[in-house]
């Protein structure tokens, strides 16, 4: 288990209290336990992602940090101050909701200025800061529209501007890009990172998603959730290259699970070389003969599902630099091949179901 990594960026001060600290957090809805003794630390200025499937507790965690729900047990600290018993309006965090939650009876500008209005900021100041926030999300000229008149992507930006206008210490984002189409989503991923970089006073982002690509692309660190627990915390590289257990290996990317010397081992598909059965293999590489069972053409790559002679099934990816191979995937089916990979790319993982709950070391 990796433990809390000291972040690479110099502006992060690991010695300060974390922006968000969650300890011993427990939440149950009736008989359903949503969170079980959750421990989590988010450093100031970090882009921190809670990644996991539906019902894994990531959104519940976010709602507990925001204060929309009270935990059954445990504490939420912001900047070292216990806010567990405080209502949402007394916490220095703001939320971007999955359904945007824009006020339908207000204009875009009024929506964005709302947080300033209820806090008694003067009218002129309010207008200026709202305009500035709208500028930041590139909606400068839509202030007089009503939310109904906007597209999904535009509403998303308004929700973001509205949450940022208060300059919170922590911004909570609940699957904010979930309702957008792929192109727009990728655009907004870059946009979110740009905005976090450009803010004069760095704001901590806590981002909830079930999309592993999104998590890998945007985050400084990722916490992988499963069934109300955290399975692993680490940088995207650590999570992907060195998954702590079978669940993480399978949820983040394709897990290629093997049994080696009584240990469970995973190797990522792009690390597996696909060779002719009699091809020479560099010394030191692991090698396994097998038969191609399935070939899927995916544009930039082709995915080979190979059944090993020893019984397991492995997936290998091959770049489509060779047009001939890419053009005739059917001819490949049933062919005998040799798979090879470097032992350094094979990760030993804890077994799946009976895995001891992996906790982050504070």
């Amino acid at each position, binding site marked *: 288990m990796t433990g809390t990594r000291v972040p690479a960026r110099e502006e992060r001060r690991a010695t300060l209290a974390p922006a968000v600290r969650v300890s011993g957090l427990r939440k149950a809805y009736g008989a359903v336990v949503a969170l079980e003794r959750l421990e989590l630390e988010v450093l100031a200025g970090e882009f921190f992602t809670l990644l996991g499937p539906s019902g894994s507790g990531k959104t519940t965690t976010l709602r507990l940090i925001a204060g929309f729900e009270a935990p059954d047990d445990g504490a939420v600290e912001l900047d070292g101050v216990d806010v567990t018993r405080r209502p949402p*309006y007394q916490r220095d965090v703001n939320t971007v909701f999955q359904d945007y939650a824009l*006020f339908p009876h207000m204009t875009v500008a009024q929506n964005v200025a709302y947080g300033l209005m209820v806090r008694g900021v003067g009218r002129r100041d309010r207008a200026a800061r709202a305009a500035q926030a709208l500028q930041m999300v590139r909606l400068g000229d839509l202030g007089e529209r009503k939310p109904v008149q906007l597209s999904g992507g535009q509403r998303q930006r308004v929700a973001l501007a509205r949450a940022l206008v208060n300059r919170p210490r922590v911004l909570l984002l609940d699957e904010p890009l979930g309702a957008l189409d792929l192109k727009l989503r990728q655009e907004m991923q870059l946009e979110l990172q740009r905005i976090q970089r450009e803010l004069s006073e760095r704001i901590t982002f806590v981002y909830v998603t079930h999309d592993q690509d999104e998590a890998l692309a945007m985050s400084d660190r990722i916490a992988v959730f499963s069934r109300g627990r955290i399975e692993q915390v680490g940088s995207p590289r650590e999570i992907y290259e060195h998954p702590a257990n079978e669940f993480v290996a399978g949820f983040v990317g394709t897990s290629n699970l093997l049994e080696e010397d009584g240990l469970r081992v995973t190797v990522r598909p792009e690390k597996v070389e696909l060779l002719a059965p009699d091809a020479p293999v560099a010394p030191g590489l692991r090698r396994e003969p097998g038969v191609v069972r399935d070939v899927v053409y995916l544009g930039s790559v082709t995915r080979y599902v190979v059944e090993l002679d020893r019984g397991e099934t492995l997936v290998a990816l091959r770049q489509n630099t060779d047009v001939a191979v890419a053009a005739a995937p059917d001819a490949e089916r049933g062919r005998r091949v040799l798979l090879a990979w470097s032992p350094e790319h094979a990760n030993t993982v804890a077994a799946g179901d009976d895995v001891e709950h992996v906790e982050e070391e504070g």
Partner: protein
Amino acid sequence: MSDTRASRAALAVWATLIALFLLAPILLIVLYAFNPSNVQSWPLHGLSTKWFSSTWHNQEMRQAFGLSVRAALISTGIALLLGSMAAFAVHRFRFFGREAISFVLVLPLALPGIITGMALNSFFAFGGVSFSLTTIVIGHATFCIVTVYNNVIARLRRTQTSLVEASMDLGADGWQTFRHVTLPVIATALVAGGLLAFALSFDEVIVTTFTAGAQNTLPLWIFGSIRLGQNLPQVNVVVLFVIALTFVPVVLAQRLTRDTGVVRMTAGRRR
């Protein structure tokens, strides 16, 4: 569906007939209001507005009108308060008997007025309550609350629950959230429900008959006049005005509930 022109024409004729069937009696009353004679006979011998001033000076009518307005205003006020509160409670909280409340609230609207009226009458007699404006208002409130309740709860159900959370998240306390978010979102539903409640109360006859005692509301005065065959020309004039008066709130209520700008955007998911 071979000839759409013929079927369209048939449909137009049919619709016109229905409209006539619904509106002809009302048009007749309007015409009679200008009838110079106090005998309702056809054809009219000219047109006159002489009954307008005599109606205006009829003290009985004026008292009845005043009572009706007061009863309708107070019933509407009570309906707005209790109806919206019930809607909030049923919408926001899960509690024992929640479904029953919905049922009990809607019941007076479905129940024949004569039953509500009789029940209230014996209840007041049993409790030794003398008939007054209060008893009329209580009778009317039973069915006015429903109209407000139905309108408000329908609006709340169409509104995202995350709006309240968003408001609190942005720093608004409970009262600010109510004032700036909840109230504006349900405002048009309140107005529509209130107008409907007022219209219902204003022309109520059956329940009122059992709860008014010796007093006359406007509908009771009209009913009495027609039954006794007195003041018929004045009744026509009053009816003309009541039609004009009720027309406004009903049209307004329809307008307000039609386009409200409250649109459910993407449905929220929760885990």
